[in-house]
């Protein structure tokens, strides 16, 4: 079955540190890729998405992600995190243009220390 893996379940960083969260998926066909974020007490919201074209995509709040097809990966990055980035981050994949069905990873809980 197609799956999405986020290997880092919990990450703790100090402010201004660089962030990279891993996301891997188990499928060699066409994929559409998403990162969602859930701030404490808030709804899940879209951070960025990749469908085609430039594999380096930029999202809101200074986040970016790079699609590496050969590695089946879509890692999320931010050069310098802020305390307000404390949240849970979810990678999601639409496999083979299957309607609009998303398969989510297990999430990574990020805590940024001030």
């Amino acid at each position, binding site marked *: 079955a197609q799956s*999405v893996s*986020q290997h880092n379940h919990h990450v703790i960083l100090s402010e201004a540190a660089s962030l990279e969260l891993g996301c891997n998926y188990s499928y060699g066909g066409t994929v*559409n890729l998403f990162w*969602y974020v859930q701030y404490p007490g808030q*709804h*899940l*919201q*879209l951070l960025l*998405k990749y*469908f085609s074209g430039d594999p380096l995509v930029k999202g809101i709040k200074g986040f970016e992600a790079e699609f590496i097809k050969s590695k089946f990966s879509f890692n999320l990055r931010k050069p310098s995190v802020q305390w307000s980035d404390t949240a849970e981050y*979810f990678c*999601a994949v*639409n496999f083979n*243009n*299957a*309607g*609009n*069905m*998303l*398969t*989510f*990873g*297990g*999430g990574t809980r990020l805590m940024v220390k001030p």
Partner: protein
Amino acid sequence: EAGVAQSPRYKIIEKRQSVAFWCNPISGHATLYWYQQILGQGPKLLIQFQNNGVVDDSQLPKDRFSAERLKGVDSTLKIQPAKLEDSAVYLCASSLGNRGSTDTQYFGPGTRLTVL
């Protein structure tokens, strides 16, 4: 623009009881989704509607779960009878439904269900 509305926000029931959740999507959104998010896991799609028709319900435990979207707007998700393992947050999401697999899904606040 109003977001996706869900009610109730919290529900506590005993096993074998029934429960229903309600979702009102963003106005004009044709596609509606119900997800189950168990603590410590990512959301798992239960059912997807396009207007009032079911697109996919392959992961819906149909022996106890049911969902409907009769007029293509609001939707209800029901569990009858509930089991302990149904304890989770039930998320509703909606999307325009006109961009296929590149549609952005907008999520509601969820209903946290505890089954005792």
